[in-house]
C-alpha cells in the first residue's frame, strides 16, 4: 500500500504475476497503475505491504538490484548517448566483456530493426524507432520482469496498432515476463495473457481477456472493458434457465441465471455489441432513436427507452438506410449475454465513474 499524504494511491493491491506471462494492468487514469509499477521497480517504497520476486522479499531492495526494468511513457532514452550506447547502457554497468557486448548489440539492433541507426541520437529517430530502441535497451539487461508504462501511448493511432503485435510477439519469442500498464481496453484485450483491472488503487478482477470481457465481476468492469448497457430494476424471477428483471415502469427483460435473490434490487448489464435493434412487436423494450453516429464499418445508434434510460447498439453500415432518428424501435439481446448484479451500494452512476 502506498499513501501520498492523505491520498491512498494503491491499496489492497494483491497481484501475482506468473513467469513468462504478459500481464496487462488496465484501469482508468489515476487508478494507481503507475504507482503499482513503481513499487514493483523499487522507485517507490510502499507504506505497507510486500513485494516478492520468486518468493524472495524485495520490498526495500534498491531498484538496481531487482533486475526489473521500467520502460517509461516517454521512453527516457538518454539524449547524450547514441542508439548503440543507449542499448548497451545496462551491459556496460554490469561490466559485460567487450566481445560479448558486441555480439549482443548486433543481435539486439537486428531484432528491433535499428542496425542502420546505431550511431544516431534519440532525437533523430521517429517515435516508433525510439520505442523500439528503448525496448532493446530494456531487453539487453535480460530482466526478470519488464515493466511497461503505457509503452504505446506516445505513438500515432495507426502505428500503435501495428506495434501491439510486434511487442507481443517479441515478448513471446524471448520468453519475457511483462507487466504492461494501459488505460486502453482494446490494447489490453489484444495483447494480454491475463488482464488485471485496477480501480481506485484496488484490483477488482484478474482473468484472461475473454473472462473479463464475458464474465465481469461488477458493473464497472462490464462497462470499462467493452461498453455496456444497463437496466436497473428488481429481480422478479430466478431459475436455472435464467432470470427476469422488472423496472418501475413495468418493463421486463431476461438474463442469465443469477445469485441475486428474487425481490432484490439489481442491475442488468449487456455489452453494446450484444444489443440488437428488433422489430417493435418482438421486443421487450421499446424506444425512440435519439441519435445515429456513422463510425465507418458500423453505425452507433442511441435509443431512448421511456423510464429505462438510454440503450446503445451497433448496426452494420449497410443497414443504415433502414432506420432514421425519431423511429420507434425494439431493443433486445440473447439472454445468455446479459448478466445481473446486485444494485451497487453507492448507486449505478457512482459505480461506473472512471476517475
Amino acid at each position, binding site marked *: 500500500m502506498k499513501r501520498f499524504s492523505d491520498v491512498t494511491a494503491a491499496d489492497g493491491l494483491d497481484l501475482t504475476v506468473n513467469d513468462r506471462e504478459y500481464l496487462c494492468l488496465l484501469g482508468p487514469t489515476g487508478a494507481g497503475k503507475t504507482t503499482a509499477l513503481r513499487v514493483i521497480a523499487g*522507485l517507490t517504497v510502499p507504506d505497507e505491504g510486500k513485494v516478492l520476486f520468486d518468493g524472495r522479499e524485495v520490498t526495500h531492495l534498491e531498484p538496481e538490484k531487482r533486475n526489473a526494468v521500467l520502460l517509461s511513457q516517454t521512453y527516457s532514452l538518454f539524449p547524450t548517448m547514441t542508439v548503440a550506447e543507449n542499448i548497451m547502457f*545496462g551491459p556496460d554497468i554490469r561490466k559485460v566483456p567487450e566481445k560479448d557486448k558486441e555480439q549482443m548489440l548486433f543481435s539486439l539492433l537486428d531484432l528491433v530493426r535499428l542496425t542502420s541507426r546505431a550511431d544516431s541520437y534519440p532525437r533523430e529517430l521517429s517515435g516508433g524507432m525510439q520505442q523500439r530502441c528503448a525496448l532493446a535497451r530494456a531487453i539487453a539487461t535480460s530482466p526478470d520482469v519488464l*515493466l511497461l508504462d503505457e509503452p504505446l501511448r506516445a505513438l500515432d493511432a495507426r502505428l500503435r496498432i501495428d506495434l501491439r503485435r510486434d511487442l507481443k510477439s517479441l515478448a513471446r519469442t524471448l520468453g519475457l515476463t511483462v507487466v504492461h500498464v494501459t488505460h486502453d481496453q482494446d490494447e489490453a484485450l489484444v495483447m494480454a495473457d491475463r488482464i488485471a483491472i485496477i480501480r481506485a488503487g484496488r484490483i477488482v478482477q484478474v482473468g484472461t481477456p475473454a473472462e473479463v470481457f464475458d464474465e465481469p465481476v461488477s458493473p464497472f468492469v462490464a462497462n470499462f472493458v467493452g461498453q455496456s448497457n444497463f437496466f436497473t430494476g428488481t429481480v422478479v424471477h430466478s431459475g436455472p434457465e435464467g432470470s427476469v428483471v422488472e423496472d418501475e415502469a413495468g418493463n421486463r427483460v431476461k438474463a442469465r441465471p443469477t445469485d441475486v435473490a428474487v425481490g432484490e434490487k439489481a442491475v442488468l448489464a449487456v455489452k453494446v455489441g450484444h444489443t440488437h435493434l428488433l422489430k417493435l412487436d418482438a421486443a421487450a423494450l421499446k424506444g425512440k432513436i435519439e441519435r445515429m453516429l456513422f463510425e465507418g464499418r458500423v453505425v452507433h445508434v442511441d435509443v431512448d427507452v421511456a423510464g429505462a434510460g438510454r440503450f446503445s447498439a451497433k448496426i452494420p453500415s449497410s443497414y443504415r438506410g433502414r432506420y432514421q432518428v425519431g423511429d420507434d424501435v425494439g431493443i433486445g439481446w440473447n439472454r445468455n449475454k446479459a448478466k445481473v448484479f446486485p444494485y451497487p451500494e453507492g448507486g449505478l452512476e457512482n459505480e461506473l465513474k472512471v476517475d
Partner: protein
Amino acid sequence: MGSSDKLLEFISGRGFRKGWTAFNIIFFLSFIILPTVFILSSAVTDWSDIQEHVLSDPATMDLIISAVVVSFEIAAIVTVIDFVAGLPVAWMMARKEFRGKQFLDTLIDMPLAVPTAALGFSAAIFWAATPNPPPFSLSAISSPMLLIVLLHVVFSYPYMVRSLTAILGGIDETYETAGRTLGASRLTAVRTITLPLFRAGLVTGAILCFARSLSETGGTIIALATLYGRKMVEGDFQTGPTLIGLWKDASVADPTLVPALTFVSILLIILALVLLVVLKVAIMKVRVPLRKVWPSPEKLLSRGLFPKIKDTSAILFLLIVVIVPSFFIFTYVLTGTPSDADWNPFIDALVTSFVVASVVTAIDLATGIPMALYIAKNRTSKLSQLLDVFVNIPLIVPTAALGFSLGRFWNTVDPAAMPPIVLIILSHVAFTYPLVVRNVVGAVEGIDPAYEETARTLGAKPLQSFRRVLLPMIKGSILAGAIMAFTRSLGETGATLAVVANANTAPVFIVNLVNDQSYYLAAMACIILIIISYVFMLLLRRFTREEVV
C-alpha cells in the same frame, strides 16, 4: 569484487547517501548561513557597546543613517532606470528577429565580463569631472550621487535585461495575438495582457539589480576616489558598503569603531532581507489599476514613429550609458602617459586572486551540487523548500556586511585558527555558492526524473546514474555556475576588505592604486583583469550554448 567496486557499493548505500546529504546541509548552514547572519546576534550580546559608541553619538549615527539611506536610494533609482531602459531591449531580444541580434546579445553581456573594480574606474574617468580628464571623456559629472547611480546602472543592467528576456520568451505570444484580433492596439494588448504576466521575471530582475547595487563596494570606492582625486575620508559621500570598507580599515588602529561597524552591518542585512520580502510581495500582490484602456492615444502610440523612437533610444542608452563607460578605460591607456613601475606586487595580487577564486569555485561545486540535487529532487519536503529560500540569503545581503559578519564569526570561534586567506575564501564561498546552486537547481528541475529512474532499473547505482545520465545533461549549467562563481570571486572587493582590512587581492590592489592616484597602473591592472574575465566569459557562452536540451 575489486576494491573500486566495493567503494562504489559503499558510496551507493542508503546510509552513505543520507550521511552525505546531511553533511552538505550542515556545511551550508554552519559555513555559509550562520556566518552570514552571525552579526545579528551582536545586537544582543554587544548592545551596551553599540549604545555607548553609536546610538549616543549623533555624529556617527548621522553618518550611518545617511550612508544606508543613500545606498537604498541608489539601488531603487538604479532598478527603476534598468527596468525602463531594459524593457524595450528585452522585448527586442525576446520577440523580434533582426540583423545584428547576435551582436546585441553579446553587447548586453559585455559589462558582466568587467570586474566591478575595473568598471568603477572606467566609468568614473568617462563621466566624472576630474582635474585632468583624459581625452574623449565627458568629464561632466561632479555629483557623487549621480556618478554612482550611473556606475551601478552599468553593471546591473545586464541582469535586468536577461531576467526580462527569459520570462518574455516564455510567455505565449498567442494571448497578445488574441487580444489584437479582438481589436486592441499593440500597446494596449501588451500593457494589459503581457506585462501583468511577467511579474515573476520582474521580481527576479529587480531583486538581482537591487542586491547588486546595494552590495557593490570596490567600483564605488574607486569611482568616488577618482572623482575626489584622493583617498576617501569620513566626511565624503558614503554608501553603506564604502563606510564598512573605510571603518574596517580604520578599526585596525581604532577598535572603538567596531560597534559602529557592527551596527551598520546589522542595519544593512536586516533591511536587505526585509526588502527582499517587500519587493516580492509588492510586485506580486499589488494590483495596479491598469485595466482601463485609452483606445485612440494608445493606437497612435502603437504606430509610426513612436515605436522606432522607443527602440532607438533604448539602444542608444545601452551604448552610451552601459557599453562605452565599461570599456572607456582602453582609450585611456592608449592615450595616457606610460609610467615605469614595479609589476611584481600586482602579479602577486593576481596570483592570490586566482588561488582564491579557484579554491572558492572548487568548494562551491563540491558542496553546492549535492545541495542543488537535494533541493531539486525533494520539492515536496519542507526542509528542501526552506533550504531553497536560505540559499538566496547570501545573494541579497550586501557583501561588505556579509564579510564583516563572517570575519567576526570565525574570530569568535577561534581567533588564531583562521589565516586571512582562509577567511577571504570562506567569505567568497558564501556569496558565490548560491550562483552554483541556483544554476544547477534550474537545470535539474528541467530534466525529467524518469531518465535517472530508468537508469536505476537498468542496474545503475545512484552514483553511476548521476555520472553517466544526469551529469552529461546538466554539464553546461554546472560550468555556467562555476564560471559565474569564479568571475564574481575574482572581481570582489567589498567582502574581501570587510573580512581582512589589508587583504592582497587584485581588485583591492586596484583600489589602493586609485587611492594613491597611480591611474596609469590602475588602468593597466584593470585591463589585465578585464581580459582574463573576458576569456572566461567566452568560455561560459560556449558551454551554455552547447548544452543538450
